[in-house]
């Protein structure tokens, strides 16, 4: 079965640079979620989109922005990168936009900021 696709899988950036992470949800899924997982920590919710509209917002820094496109893929844009942004970034997708729809996670993008 098709799963959530994330690209790139690994990304190395310098401080103050920008990064763009991409997420392609499971076919027919219309809702995407972004999570950040620091080393040894649990995933922290950043932001979600349903039918191309922002549906929920968590602890996402103002330096980050995201959007969902007409084909339902999503991009997380990160600017003025800091050392503390180094983490695994997961995208998850679900169908229907209801709060109890199961979220299926992608393999993640490992971002390293030097």
């Amino acid at each position, binding site marked *: 079965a098709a799963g959530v696709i994330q690209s790139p899988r690994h990304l190395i950036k310098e401080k103050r640079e920008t990064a763009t992470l991409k997420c392609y949800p499971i076919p027919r899924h219309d*809702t995407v979620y972004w999570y950040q997982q620091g080393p040894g920590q*649990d995933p922290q919710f950043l932001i979600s989109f349903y039918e191309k509209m922002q549906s*929920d917002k968590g602890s996402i820094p103002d330096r980050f922005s995201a959007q969902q496109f007409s084909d339902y893929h999503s991009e997380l844009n990160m600017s003025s990168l800091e050392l503390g942004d180094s983490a695994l970034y997961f995208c998850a997708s679900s169908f229907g936009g209801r709060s109890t729809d199961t979220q299926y*996670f*992608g393999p993640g993008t490992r971002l390293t900021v030097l």
Partner: protein
Amino acid sequence: EDQVTQSPEALRLQEGESSSLNCSYTVSGLRGLFWYRQDPGKGPEFLFTLYSAGEEKEKERLKATLTKKESFLHITAPKPEDSATYLCAVQAFGGGYNKLIFGAGTRLAVHP
């Protein structure tokens, strides 16, 4: 504040030695409780969703149960391939209903 606490933090079992992982939660209202398995450097893999107290779900050697205050993940006769971090997460009523609130996880190691 909505909160999820998992115990123990780490668990070492011998192959075939059954045990249970605990997830206690404090939420304004529970929409759903989710169990995921996560291998190092990989994304969480969905296991179960539980919605109401008394509900139980089973899959192979795993069985999840739910009460009004906590959930248990029972592992029967585990094998080394069951070694992973098991994450519990909740969705709560109120603001931010979409997001999953995760616990810190239980790192399970099953030795032959």
